[in-house]
């Protein structure tokens, strides 16, 4: 049987490509804001409960229970804030980009329901600065929602008030970290903050704050409409429901695919994305964005299950899957990731600020035929100061997860191609030494 998507969050935007982002189409053809109407008649605590029942886990990367996160807000402390994380920057992730451009009303509805559930009267959507069209459509959608009484004061006569602000970032990966985002939203450098206190206790302006991802927000209206139990009925184990996976790299049909969790990597990569381009053999794939440790073709029959991924010492992270064929040099990929993390390290914690630059430098020479025989061991040796133990789930000596991410691909090199790389470094070193003798 052909592999198929299970479209819930992406159903509407796929069926009405030409106008799915407009208020009129969303209202007329997708019952937009009907879940908000239903939610406003519910007890806020019941909404939190319903989302807990659904088993929905955050779609940004960490995979923390959404309802559980909401339930951590301390009682009776107000004001509270909702910050929606639309600063999609994890390399090879492009699902939120699509949701923002093509179904902004679903996001606004989810955010409004969430704000009501946690009793926040101010919500912010922090959108990545580079999303020009996305910001334009989202802003228009917010204005339409205000004009039609779905945002603002006394929404639909419920007595609930909500101000929703679209806030544009300005080019910064670490603003996608939940506390980095809050720093940025406060007008600071987007430097992550030490936890605890967690944002639920002291977040934006030191007030209780929930930070949720765009895909998470987009899922909420469906859970309210059809119930937590319905959502929990999909998926596998503790990974319930569907997820959008961004498949890219060397595949026939790169793109976003929404599938029920529990599908195998093989069905997703080969069945939906058409397999490796040109029918070539796969060398390796990255299962959850640049920060996730790599997997090999032998793992293709593993299920898309967040906890199973942890057992395999990696993660489904942001749902970005990058596929590489046999022609790709893993050292080159690793170096490019190192360069990325060195560029995006905010500079707050010493191990990451210094370490990310050194990893970049050493990997550069390794990938460009100038490596020394013990370079991989050198990387693992000083990398141990960023990620003590060098084993996922990563321990870290830094405030945020960017630290361990700088070493994730190095650990993968050792795990997947250690012998191959050591042999190559030794060979290249011997060749250079021979050349030096000749030229001397």
């Amino acid at each position: 049987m052909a592999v198929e998507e299970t479209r819930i969050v992406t159903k509407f935007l796929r069926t009405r490509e030409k106008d799915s982002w407009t208020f009129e189409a969303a209202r007329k053809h997708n019952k937009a804001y009907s879940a908000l109407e239903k939610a406003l008649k519910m007890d806020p605590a019941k909404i939190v409960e319903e989302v807990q029942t659904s088993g929905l886990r955050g779609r940004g990367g960490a995979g923390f229970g959404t309802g559980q996160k909401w339930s951590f807000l301390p009682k009776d402390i107000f004001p509270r804030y909702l910050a929606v994380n639309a600063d999609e920057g994890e390399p090879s992730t492009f699902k939120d980009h699509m949701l923002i451009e093509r179904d902004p009303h679903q996001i606004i509805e989810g955010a409004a329901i969430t704000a009501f559930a946690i009793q926040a009267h101010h919500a912010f959507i922090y959108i990545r600065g580079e999303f020009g069209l996305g910001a334009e459509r989202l802003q228009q959608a917010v204005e339409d929602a205000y004009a039609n009484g779905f945002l603002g004061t006394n929404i639909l006569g419920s007595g609930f008030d909500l101000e929703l602000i679209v806030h544009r970032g300005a080019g910064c990966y670490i603003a996608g970290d939940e506390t980095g985002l809050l720093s940025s939203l406060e007008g600071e450098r987007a430097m992550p903050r030490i936890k605890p206190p967690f944002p639920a206790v002291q977040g934006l302006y030191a007030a209780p704050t929930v930070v949720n991802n765009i895909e998470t927000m987009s899922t909420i209206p469906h859970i309210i409409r059809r119930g937590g139990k319905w959502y929990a009925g999909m998926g596998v184990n503790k990974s319930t429901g569907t997820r959008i996976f961004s498949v890219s790299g060397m595949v026939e049909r790169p793109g976003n695919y929404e599938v029920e969790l529990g599908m195998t990597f093989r069905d997703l990569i080969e069945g939906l994305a058409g397999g490796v381009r040109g029918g070539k053999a796969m060398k390796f794939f990255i299962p959850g964005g640049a920060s996730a440790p790599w997997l090999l073709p032998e793992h293709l029959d593993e299920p898309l299950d967040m906890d199973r991924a942890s057992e395999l010492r990696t993660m489904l992270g942001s749902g970005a899957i990058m596929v590489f064929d046999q022609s790709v040099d893993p050292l080159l990929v690793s170096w490019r990731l190192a360069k990325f993390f060195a560029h995006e390290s905010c500079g707050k914690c010493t191990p990451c600020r210094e370490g990310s630059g050194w990893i970049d430098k050493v990997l550069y020479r390794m990938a460009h035929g100038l490596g020394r025989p013990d370079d991989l061991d050198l990387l693992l040796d000083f990398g141990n100061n960023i990620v003590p133990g060098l084993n996922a789930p990563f321990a870290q000596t830094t405030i945020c997860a960017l630290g361990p991410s700088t070493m994730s691909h190095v650990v993968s090199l050792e795990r997947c191609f250690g012998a191959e790389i050591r042999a190559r470094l030794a060979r290249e070193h011997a060749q250079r030494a021979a050349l030096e003798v000749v030229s001397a």
Partner: protein
Amino acid sequence: VGFTDADRRRAKELIARYPHGRSALLPLLHLAQDRDGWVTPEAMEEIAGLLDMTPALVLGTCSFYTMLKREPVGKLIVSVCTNVSCLVNGGPSLFEGLRARYAEDDDVFVEEVECLAACDLAPVMQVNYEYHGPLTTETAVDVIEQYQRGELVARTVSGTTVGAKGGST
């Protein structure tokens, strides 16, 4: 030139949207950049005055973000991704090709950027933050020339184009 009265009115509207004014710093820096093409030192002083901050604090935030330019960059900002999905699809040669082509052109600013979240379009570039891909150096130059001639260039919507055929129906 400094902020006009209209700029100041717009700035005050932005500040009023937030529970704490300082949150308006990035929107104000965007406002300044949209106006002048880059964030001038005068604009930073103006913003500092509006938010009751020192200009050094404004610079501190401004200099952290790659989209905020602190020197003139020309009319077209061409951002080419070379991160991994673009790396294995020709991103680096696209970047090098465009950089060489426009090295002497003050109006076209070619920069290498990190993942633009459009890997289904790899190799991808943005021109003034509008997406284009997948590209070769030749087709990219073609697109840039359309902008230079002031033609209306079709906007790319995420997941709907030829390169991004995956999943779309």
